[in-house]
């Protein structure tokens, strides 16, 4: 059964709907399915509303089709791996007792910013902007604080996305289509 894509009507300011809505036709008896769907929709909206995700994430979800059914999960996993690596690098650099190599920290932040913006992790991306400022002013304490925040956000986002994927899995296993 082909997976249809439909998009719940956006109800927070940042997202503009550019895609067509294609409503799936579901059998009326499947209450569990519609409940799950509604849950997923609410959850996704809340993530957008709170700024965890932005439009780019929706773009990624669009790219998911029959030829690449797990595209989003793959990208997101790669992102978190990357994130982990970069955070470790930065932590090591910032805990140097002698001179801190801010150049390296800066390039790591840059990488992280690029990755987060490609994935649509809005909060992390914004943190990277602030982080970069601290780097430019060679503020070690500021950088440490930013790093801790980034770490926290990463963990938070990871949990949230895991919840999202779990909800999607629920729907798929119930035989429905993944709403976008």
């Amino acid at each position, binding site marked *: 059964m082909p997976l249809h894509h439909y998009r719940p009507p956006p109800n927070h300011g940042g997202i503009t709907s*550019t895609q067509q809505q294609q409503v799936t036709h579901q059998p009326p008896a499947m209450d569990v399915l519609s409940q799950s769907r509604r849950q997923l929709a609410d959850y996704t909206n809340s993530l957008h509303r709170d700024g965890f995700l932005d*439009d*780019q994430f929706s*773009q*990624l979800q*669009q*790219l998911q*089709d029959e*030829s*690449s059914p797990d*595209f989003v999960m*793959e*990208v997101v996993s*790669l*992102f978190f791996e*990357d994130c982990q690596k970069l955070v470790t690098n930065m932590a090591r650099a910032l805990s140097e007792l002698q001179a801190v190599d801010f150049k390296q920290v800066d390039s790591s932040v*840059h*990488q992280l*910013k*690029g*990755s987060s*913006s*490609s*994935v*649509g992790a809005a909060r992390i991306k914004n943190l990277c902007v602030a982080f970069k400022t601290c780097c430019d002013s060679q503020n070690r304490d500021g950088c440490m604080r930013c790093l801790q925040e980034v770490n926290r956000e990463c963990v938070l986002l990871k949990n949230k996305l895991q919840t999202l994927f779990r909800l999607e899995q629920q729907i798929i296993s119930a035989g429905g289509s993944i709403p976008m």
Partner: protein
Amino acid sequence: MESCNCIEPQLPPDELLSKYQYISDFFIALAYFSIPLELIYFVKKSAVFPYRWVLVQFGAFIVLCGATHLINLWTFTIHSRTVAIVMTTAKILTAVVSCATALMLVHIIPDLLSVKTRELFLKNKAAELDREMGLIRTQEETGRHVRMLTHEIRSTLDRHTILKTTLVELGRTLSLEECALWMPTRTGLELQLAYTLRQQNPVGYTVPIHLPVINQVFSSNRAVKISPNSPVARLRPLAGKYPGEVVAVRVPLLHLSNFQINDWPELSTKRYALMVLMLPSDSARQWHTYELELVEVVADQVAVALSHAAILEESMRARDLLMEQNVALDLARREAETAIRARNDFLAVMNHEMRTPMHAIIALSSLLQETELTPEQRLMVETILKSSNLLATLINDVLDLSRLEDGSLQLDLGSFNLHSAFREVINLIRPIASVKKLVVTLHLAPDLPEYATGDEKRLMQTLLNVVGNAVKFSKEGSISITAFVAKAESLRDPRAPDFFPVPSDNHFFLRVQVKDTGSGINPQDYPKLFTKFAQSQSLATKNSAGSGLGLAICKRFVNLMDGHIWLESEGLGKGCTAIFMVKLGVTECCTESKLPPATNASMNHAQTAFPGLKVMVMDDNGVSRMVTKGLLVHLGCDVTTVSSGDECLRLISQDHHVVFIDVCMYDGYEVALRVHEKLTKRHERPLTVALTANSDKATKDHCRRVGMNGVVLKPVSVDKMRTVLSDLLEHRNLV
């Protein structure tokens, strides 16, 4: 006569008494005789005495009294009877006369007394008359002074002279210590010391106009005594211990409009000047009424004189202005005539000079066309021919300018292919545009008829001119041309409210919009745009080769085609849109086969999929790489990803159509350069597009410098990627 009681000559002791009596009588007689003599003498001398006969009577009385006393002298001794008789007669006469006189005096003395009264009265009268005469004399003197002052004042029409003369004359007439004139300032809130008598250059004292003393003076037309300590009067340090009395009077400043024919300008004026007059200090002089009146009269006269002076100044100024304008107009007229003559001469001469080479080009190009040519050469020759034809038409029109102006130019109507006309114009302009790296797009509306009736050449000329202008004045960016059939509501333009195109069954209105991203138009230049030979200053300095005729001619052609042309621009640097509408006839001719719609469609719509498009993505960020690859795969491309410059250069080949390079990488630009070096042939080289998170000008400039074909902002959405790819494929360049 012994019974006589005469006194004996012997001197008894009573004889002393008689002796004295004798002497007294003698003197009395003497006096009595001399008094009338004196009286007569003095009366004769005075000649005004009215009561002569009273005098006579009085004289007779006195004479007789004297005679009596004289005769008495003889009675002291023995005397004869004659003497006694004479004595008696004398006494009787005297009695008579004296009674008469006494009676007379009763009448006379009151008269005499009243004379005295009258005399007193007359004396008083005389004194009064004296006084009055003195008054009249002073009044007459005042009048004389006023006349003299007025004469002085009115003998000049110069404002300053008037005021100065007033002060001088007043000072002289009234022997003033100081005389000052305060004029209101422009704001009307202060009085400024304008003129003084004694001080040569009055320093600009000002006093506010709403002081109570000033209000008092201004509220009445009389001269008012003011305190010497008020600010308007304290002009110089006190010369003496007691300052002289000070008087102030208002001088109305009249305006032209105050002079009505039927009523005097009494209270209709609001502006006053203040004249302050000071008597000399320590002089104990007081202001007399007549002096105050003089001052008031003078003040009025001054007002009138000033108004006359003002009127005269106005009329002189107006007359001078008119004369200047006349001279200027004359000059302009002569210049215009010269210019027209020059233009006609120029046109007459150049007529021949311009046509000859043009015809040579056209003729020879046509001949060249007949010879053996390669397809490329043929294309070039055809383009030359087309351009030359257009140019020849342009020359004809320029040189026949007078025909255009008269409106005797006729359109060559015929049916032609509208779509191919547009395409030809685009093809003509494309080479120039691509040299300037401008993107030219054409959008023809689907409901635009393929064939139309009209003057093809002139329409193409207009279009070419407008598009040419767009290209000329854009240094970068794009030109987009849209053509569609104008609907009723879009036919009205706010800038041409009297343009009412009415489409009918046989005709339709073609509306063409040419939008560019060039230097825009300064709103101030807008009126001159369609003027012949007029170019705005900014355009002329940009080394433009135009003659300034283009838009003017276009306007004329468009007008001939019952249309309208105008330009819209938001301002300098904000691009410009040229819009024109012309009336064309509907034609049923379908002799030429319709072009396949696919080519049209491909021009208007972006492709939805790009099968087989080989794309390389170079990005050192794994996540970004994956996302970009996913995007491109979703759009059907064949994607190769590399993460370093070396890998990219190793794998790049001319099979790749597009290379996306993340220029935030340290060697991003270098890779682009290397790619261009490696694959040098233009047609085969893949298009390089920069992916970056920075959208600033520096990045864009850098990309352009290394020869990249476009810049795309990360993160990229599906639609954006789609647009990017289709633009790339269509134009080999990004907007």
